[in-house]
């Protein structure tokens, strides 16, 4: 056993007039590297009022996005050694820029609204064939790096442009999904999709800061997708 010092952002709207940081010493087994989520589960066993979301505990459901020692990431696939460093100190805060419901749980409504705005579903009004629509491996390869998004919001909540304009800038996650449908050979609504994005805010608020790329726990590149949408918008205008 060894000890990790965990500092957790605490806020319960019924009890606290303002948020505070709670420090806890958590005993962790010494023989293997835990993930940050494992440490949180141990902390919650000591203090069951500590609140966070979690589900798959393997980095595919996107529940436990949080700010870990200053960087957004998924608690379940961030190793303790990597996050806490030699000082063995973990600092856990909610994803930045969104209202906090309680402790590490944020209100993701604005994030989901931006996602829904891009009409995240395949649009093709042609009657489908009796079997599948054909798609070549090359056409399908265009979706790699896009469809894998888990909607964890790590990217969007690390984006200063989204912090400024969460109501008008679609944000990296929504735009990555927008491009996922623009790039799909089966989707027939390219023109409409682009028209819906063609304003000063939806796409063009991206300033290429690339925080989204550095934090994405799935290694995806929203900035590149946004660049492609920009190009499509520019070409459309000429």
């Amino acid at each position, binding site marked *: 056993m060894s000890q990790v010092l965990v500092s957790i952002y605490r806020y319960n709207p019924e009890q606290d007039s303002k948020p505070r940081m709670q420090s806890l010493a958590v005993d962790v087994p010494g023989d293997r590297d835990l993930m940050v989520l494992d440490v949180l589960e141990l902390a919650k066993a000591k203090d*069951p009022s500590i609140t966070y*979301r979690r589900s798959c505990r*393997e980095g595919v*459901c996107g*529940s436990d996005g949080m700010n870990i020692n200053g960087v957004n990431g998924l608690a379940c696939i961030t190793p303790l050694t990597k996050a806490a460093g030699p000082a063995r100190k973990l600092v856990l805060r909610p994803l930045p820029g969104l209202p906090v419901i309680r402790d590490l749980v944020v209100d993701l409504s604005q994030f989901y609204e931006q996602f*829904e705005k891009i009409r995240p579903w395949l649009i093709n009004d042609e009657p489908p064939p009796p079997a599948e629509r054909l798609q070549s*491996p090359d056409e399908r390869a265009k979706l790699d790096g896009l469809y894998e998004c888990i909607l964890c919001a790590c990217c969007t909540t690390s984006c200063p442009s989204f912090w400024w304009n969460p109501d008008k800038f679609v944000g990296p996650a929504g735009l990555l999904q927008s491009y996922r449908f623009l790039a799909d050979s089966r989707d027939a609504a390219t023109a409409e999709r682009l028209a819906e994005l063609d304003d000063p805010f939806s796409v063009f608020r991206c300033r290429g800061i690339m925080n989204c790329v550095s934090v994405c726990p799935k290694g995806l590149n929203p900035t590149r997708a946004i660049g492609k949408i920009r190009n499509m918008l520019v070409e459309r205008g000429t």
Partner: protein
Amino acid sequence: MSGFRQISFDAIIVGGGGAGMRAALQLSQSGFRTAVLSKVFPTRSHTVSAQGGITCAIASADPEDDWRWHMYDTVKGSDYIGDQDAIEYMCMEGPQTVYELEHMGLPFSRTPNGRIYQRPFGGQSKNFGKGGQAARTCAAADRTGHALLHTLYQGNLKNDTVFLNEWYVIDLVVNQDGAVSGVTAINIEDGEVCFVAAAAIVLATGGAGRIYASTTNALINTGDGVAMCLRAGFPVQDMEMWQFHPTGIHGAGTLVTEGCRGEGGYLINKDGERFMERYAPNAKDLAGRDVVARAMVLEVLEGRGCGERGDHVMLKLDHLGVEVLNSKLPGILELSRAFAHVDPIREPIPVVPTCHYMMGGIPTNIHGQALARSAEGEDEAIPGLFAAGEAACVSVHGANRLGGNSLLDLVVFGRAAGKHIDELLQQGMRARQAAPEDVDRALDRLRRLDSSREGESTAALRGELQNIMQLHFGVFRTGEFMREGIAKLEDLKPRIENSHLADKSAAFNTARIEALELENLFAVAEATAIAAEGRDESRGAHARDDFRERDDDNWLCHSLYFPEQRKIGKREVNFRPNVVDTFEPRARTY
């Protein structure tokens, strides 16, 4: 508890995984007011973790492929207690169901001619077991569940399904006539308690793998729907049948898809021997999951396990080459690096059989109607109640599920339940009335927790439960040892019934939810334990050291667990498919 709000819909679906969202989609498309109540945002549901694919005979990899061959494999895989009318329906409807998902946008991997890519999976054959290994599992790389779940969520957004996300259902509201009129639920965000009424209530709450200490299942898989039925006094079926997946990552429990072996990976022991050749000379590493899991445990017990403690075996993939691994198994590379600290491109992955899937569940017919037993011992539909997916037991998996059949089960029967409810609503089915005391009864356990003053906390009790199940009801079972386990559960029961919720706050109180989930885990565990002790034979995933043979004279049947008597009974298996001849039970070898 009075003053709670009532909300009404035509249909409510409890659970936002694949089965629930497929049922919801069907009803929303027909214009019915449909709500999905999910304790997590829908794309956080456990369907998202399915990797390898969805099995069905779309005849892409093999133009000759036939759904009847898939049916044969599934019946054999079930060790002959899968219902043949349901398996027939699933295998026959499968291709259409998969095409619908593709039309909705599911990003399947593709073959050079543009069709959906299919890979070999365990227990698959051509020509009724006589034509060698088939490749029948439709895949989106090794992220098929993720792709499927997101596609269904997208389809529901498009069709204006109402989502009550982060709402936790407490119990079924059952009226004086035994009909289900709705559910009681908490809005997790603000703690508000509501009565949600509907003409049709679909339980699509998934599995309960968290009854075991070591599981591939998400933390949310706590058997909520099955436990609600048990508390309502409804029977559940085949609860002794739990699948242990051969390849969970040693120590972490994280799933490594069977698709790894489908693509050509294989298991080795400490001597580097490909030991499955001894246990299943034909199918080798692609034998049924129960067969492979038992072989692995025997290797370990006989001293051929790997590692310092000799407690696991290795899955070798490096010979497949970087290109195949990157294109076909990219998610496995990520998971292995994160959770096993190995890079499969160079080293094998340490794996152990890990609790993965609940074959049992709420008995239903092929329309998703939940079934109880009449006084005369006949099936009777429970008015208002439906179930689909892992929570249900229709039963297409019998005693052992084949890989790739769970995604198929949940979309085929989610859709079937949706279609049937659609018809019933068209015919004028209305919500059944509930009296205030009926609703009140469905709030008992919440009230008990909220007034608790002392007792033990959830985390420690849950750990004890999981260890009992792991130790006494694992891959190999014996009567005496299971009876010891049942006695331990009996000791644990009052402690859980008197557990203490220290934090009574309203907003996003996950301690309250976890305490409610613990009661559900216990209910499922108890049903599992009693059913497992009762079935004195070995069949499929249920392997007994004291009854090593399959006993078709006495046990070619489902078990039904009756919660009020805490006893099991028997229910006959369906051997009457509609279009093909019955597949008669035979010795099961691979």
